[in-house]
């Protein structure tokens, strides 16, 4: 017995060593980014690499705001991301409720419309979409980006999968009590769907915040551009100012990090319950 417990202890140690090794490997690019963001450009590539700079150049984090209109970019991106995420959560969960819990005419046909487009990559229709938006006079506006991100089939599909896992009897009981469908949605469904909503929030927030191709097609005016285009532009213009590039990169990661850490405890549960695991 003593032997087995010793063996399992060794196993445990090995497990932790392997895990920590993998985590470090996963984190190296981020550590490198953080470290380089505090260095002078000439020190970025010194050998052997110094992970903790001797005299950190905090100045990088001040200068970056003046080199490019970073604040403008951050504000633009925040505005787009918040609106898109709010719209996405609201309209998707609303529509998904009907698809999961209500009976109505041409339900299947409408849902098929959503399903059919999930398999169509955005890149397939980005060209006609762009032409259409331009004819609406929406090119070079934030509204265009919001419109093309906010109403995804994926959101409806995901929320529907989740709602289907909630027993129908719950809604039936509420209906017998005389609750309207809107009230059932608000009072019963919404409070139950925290894991699914958190998962959808992470996906939508991250996708919109990090989106690059969409804004780079639509936004041409400098002060309308988003953080990702700004970052790319900066990398192109000042390719050897590593410290500043990395400082800007770190800044661009912070909001995503916050949202992710706040919601991640629901995340695995959400993925499991929404059946996007297949």
């Amino acid at each position, binding site marked *: 017995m003593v032997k087995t417990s010793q063996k399992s202890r060794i196993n445990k140690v090995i*497990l932790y060593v*392997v*895990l920590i090794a*993998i*985590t470090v490997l*996963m984190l190296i*690019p981020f550590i*490198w*980014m953080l470290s*380089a963001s505090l260095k002078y450009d000439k020190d970025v*590539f010194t050998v052997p690499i110094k992970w903790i700079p001797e005299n950190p150049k905090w100045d990088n984090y001040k200068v970056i705001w003046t080199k490019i209109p970073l604040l403008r970019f951050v504000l633009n991106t925040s505005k787009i991301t918040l609106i898109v995420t709010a*719209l996405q959560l*609201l309209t998707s969960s*609303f529509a998904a*409720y*009907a698809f999961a819990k*209500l*009976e*109505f*005419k041409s339900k299947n046909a*409408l849902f098929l*419309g959503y399903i059919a*487009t999930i*398999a169509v*990559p955005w*890149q*397939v*229709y*980005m*060209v006609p979409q762009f*032409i*259409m938006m331009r004819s609406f006079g929406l090119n070079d506006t934030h509204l265009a980006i919001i*419109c093309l991100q906010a*109403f995804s089939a994926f959101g409806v599909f995901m929320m529907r999968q989740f709602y289907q896992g909630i027993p129908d009897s719950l809604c039936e009981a509420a209906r017998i009590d005389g609750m309207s*469908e809107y009230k059932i*949605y608000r009072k019963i469904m919404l409070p139950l769907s925290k894991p699914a909503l958190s998962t959808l929030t992470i996906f939508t927030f991250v996708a919109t915040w*990090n989106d*690059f*191709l969409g804004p780079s097609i639509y936004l041409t005016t400098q002060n309308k551009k988003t*953080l*990702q285009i700004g*970052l*790319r532009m900066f*990398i192109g213009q000042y390719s050897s100012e*590593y410290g500043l*590039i*990395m400082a800007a*990169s*770190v800044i*661009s*990661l912070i909001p*995503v*990090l916050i949202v992710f850490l706040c919601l*991640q405890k629901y*995340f*695995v549960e959400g*993925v*499991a319950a929404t059946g996007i*695991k*297949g």
Partner: protein
Amino acid sequence: MTFDTRTNIMPIFGRILEIREGGGRPILAYDNMNNKELSVTDAKEKQEKLNALDAKMKQLQQRLMTEFNVWGLDSKKDKDKIKEKDKLLKEMKKTQKAIEKIKTGKLLSRDGKRNLVAYSFIAPNFIGFAVFTLVPVVCAFLLAFMSWDGNNPIQFVGLDNFKHLADDTRFIAALKNTVVYSVATVPFTLIAALGLAILLNKKIKGRAIFRAIGFFPYVASLIAVAAVWNNIFSPGAGIVNVLLTNLGVAKQNLPGWAADSQWAMFTVVSFSVWKSMGYYMVIYLAGLQGISAELYEAASLDGANAWQKFKNVTWPQLKPTTFFVIIMLTINCFKVYDQVYMLTQGGPGTSTLVLVYHIYQTAFVTSTDYGYASAISMVLFALVLFVTIIQFRGEKNYAND
């Protein structure tokens, strides 16, 4: 005579439609329940319609009684018969609805109201979705058969765009690279994700933190981490090449990574694996949580070691998840663009040019040949469709799992 002569009475749930005449008054129909007068022509018309519907209903009921033995149908043997019966029942329901609509005289039946409520739930999303996704998708198909540069009038060119694909060397390179990229990325990501998920499904301290770290590359801005990747894999002074030099690799043998046509694809693939494995790890974690603990206990009782447990319990139980992961991974690989744009710009030469990059360039950079760009999109769509069909077939196989 002052009292009315009732020429017609129809008791329907207490509703009576009667036609009154007499007393020198104009002939009137009176809808007792709805408390209003109707013109006789309207009433008669209504009556005729009702009679016809009633007759139809009776006929349908008759058919149901005689032709279909309601209780004796076998779900396997009498498939056609059941289908026919369902059709009949549907028709009866429809007729019933029509009758009710005439009787109550309300524009909105109960069903109509229910539909309206449901549509009000769907409308906010569906309108946006239809305008900004559905319409462009349909247009993309049409545009593939047109020639248009955005300014001159659109011209229908039939299959010319598709014929042009065959002698577009950049397109052929892009197609080949997309497939190569997918074939390389899928297995590595899968193995890495599965390994991580199994490790992080164990009961260990700080599991949530490890999971968060594993997932973080997926949510991190691609532009930002690709910039880091470019520096780490920089041919001159990047830490990877410094490490290789220390390990004794001669200077002229050091790979040029993104700038080296032999290594560029490897650079993109390794970046993609690192970036997306966390996402698939979470999917695998969800799958692992669905495996019942009893299976592992039973395996332990049989004296199975870790590898045997994996081979005989975990892997077979995860089959549907693995299948889903492979499909999603493949589809996402076909859509690769951002990493290529950030790391190699499709180069050197055409060594990492992929389909979406080619579409983007054709439509927005080197030309504004929208029709041709749509034709390339159709190839991308065909690839994705092909994989999706396999998925649907496979899902049927796993439906019982």
